[in-house]
């Protein structure tokens, strides 16, 4: 009796979750099928999960105009690598002294970091300072610098990790053995902290990979567009593909109609598929990062 009731309950839950999974994935599937649909059948019957006529035209077109995509991919990869590395280094260097119970002025230092999470100047002064004082408009630095510490939040998480997971006794004994502070930090603290460094590094990598806001406000030169900025520009203005392409191979494109609708969707596919393919491999750490991020630092 109880057993069948349980089975029905389990089955009902699975049905519910399969529906949830379909709702989460359906837009992606639509994006994918649309990008493989012929322009003619889109004009006729709209975006469809089972188009009447498949076609590779969109990808053929993007292939002929691959320079923009590869360049923006390159910029995204460069910015992500440098930003994550520098951001992680600054965070670790700042949070380790904060975690030391014997560090002078550590209360003030914690407040200095913490206050940035409570109050901020907002877009206008930030924009003016970065553009007028530091002259970062249309510079790759503008894609890297503003995101380095993500408002001090990771610093506090790391400090808590150092405090709770690394016994003070081993720092003391190393220091008695004559190891300097830098040696202790690089040879002992960092290797012991690999889990937290990996988790926070991953969150920062995703943050940089997905960032389009800094590009939107600081970058107007399309040669410096990151992948997200290129996608953003094409989303808001499909003509951008045409304008940008016509400068490249004007004669060819002017005759053949550009399959704008499908090219647009194909762009989004190229933008999102690598991330989705990598997702199963970092999924576990991503979940971990979200959970420690939510618990107070």
């Amino acid at each position, binding site marked *: 009796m109880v057993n069948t009731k349980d089975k029905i309950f389990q089955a009902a839950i699975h049905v519910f979750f399969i529906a949830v999974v379909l709702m989460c994935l359906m*837009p992606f599937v639509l994006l994918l099928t649309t990008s493989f649909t012929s322009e003619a059948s889109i004009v006729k*019957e*709209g975006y469809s999960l089972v188009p009447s006529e498949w076609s590779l035209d969109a990808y053929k077109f993007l292939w002929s105009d691959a320079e923009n995509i590869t360049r923006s991919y390159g910029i995204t990869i460069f910015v992500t690598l440098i930003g994550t590395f520098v951001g992680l280094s600054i965070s670790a260097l*700042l949070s380790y*002294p904060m975690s030391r119970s014997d560090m002078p002025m550590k209360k003030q230092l914690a407040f200095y970091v913490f206050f940035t999470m409570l109050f901020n100047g907002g877009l*206008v*002064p930030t924009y003016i300072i970065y553009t007028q004082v530091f002259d970062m408009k249309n510079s790759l630095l503008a894609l890297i610098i503003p995101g380095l510490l993500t408002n001090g939040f990771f610093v506090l998480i790391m400090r808590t990790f150092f405090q709770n997971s690394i016994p003070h006794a081993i720092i003391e004994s190393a220091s008695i053995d004559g190891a300097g502070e830098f040696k202790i930090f690089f040879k002992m603290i960092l290797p012991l902290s690999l889990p937290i460094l990996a988790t926070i590094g991953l969150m920062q990598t995703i943050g940089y990979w997905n960032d389009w806001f800094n590009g939107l406000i600081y970058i107007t030169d399309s040669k410096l567009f990151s992948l997200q900025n290129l*996608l953003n520009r094409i989303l808001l203005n499909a003509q951008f593909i045409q304008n940008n392409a016509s400068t490249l191979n004007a004669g060819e494109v002017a005759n053949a109609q550009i399959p704008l609708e499908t090219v647009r969707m194909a762009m989004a596919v190229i933008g999102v598929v690598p991330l989705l393919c990598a*997702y199963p491999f970092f999924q576990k750490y991503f979940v971990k990062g979200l959970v420690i991020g939510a618990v107070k630092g």
Partner: protein
Amino acid sequence: MATTASTATAKPAEQQTEVRRAQNPVLKRLKRYAPLFIMIIPGVIYLFINNYLPMLGLIIAFKDVNFAKGILASDWIGFKNFEYLFKTEDAWIITRNTLLYNISFIILNLIIAVGIAILLNEVKKKVAARFYQSIVLIPYLISMVIVGYLVLAMLSGETGFINKQILPLFGIDPISWYSEPKYWPVILVIVNVWKNVGYLCIIYLAAIIGIDPEYYEAATIDGAGKWRQITQITIPLIAPVITIMTLLQIGRIFYSDFGLFYQVPLNTGELLSTTNVVDTYVYRALINLGDIGMSSAAGLYQSVVGFVLVLLSNYIVSKRNRDNALF
């Protein structure tokens, strides 16, 4: 052993230097901790530039900024910028939109996320549970630009999935979604739930998994059914987490997800009455119109109200339970 010997021999010498240094204990302390202070330099400088300078920069809201004169030398105009801002209808619209959207996001996300988390915890096959969990997180992983494309694929007027495939099934005429403001409150709420519910769900699931199974065993022995276990054990025990997460969101109720309100409606002018929020207003005033006065006034309005709300929500948490407070 070796260390004790070396400290023993080093002692007389150390005593001598100590006598000399004792005159200046501050300097000695500084020297001892110099490496640690060197470590924090990049971070301290970075936060100063990225966070503290813009805070000081908030004074431009009280100035008539003139780049020829420089920001500091520009004329003070008191509250003029705020007078202009609050005279416009926009000030009311962006405040209303920001608050109403955030309130609906908080309530709906909470109910749906807790519901999914509880059900996810009931799934017996762990492989399946992990699979479902990974999938609901995918929307949270991707950028708002991609979300903008996905919504466009659904709602595009001429070719969109809804207009071409779904509405004909019910015999409804196509709707031009991107020029009708009245639909957007519903669309944006759905998109927000779709994107963010997975994240909250993971947080609540982590809290549920942390509950001691003995509670449920005892309840089963006492003959309590699933429903009673959920309402009498699960929900009360994750209530602290729910409170913190909700108060954190209330503390940010005056801020909104810029991408959701900018990318998803494709920055469409016709939709502004229901899609303009403080963040998008500040952005457009600054970047599109170059109106530093208006945008800085709106920005300061947001910073100050936001700050008060964070302090207030934290005060409420700390009154209920000191440990849960953020500070």
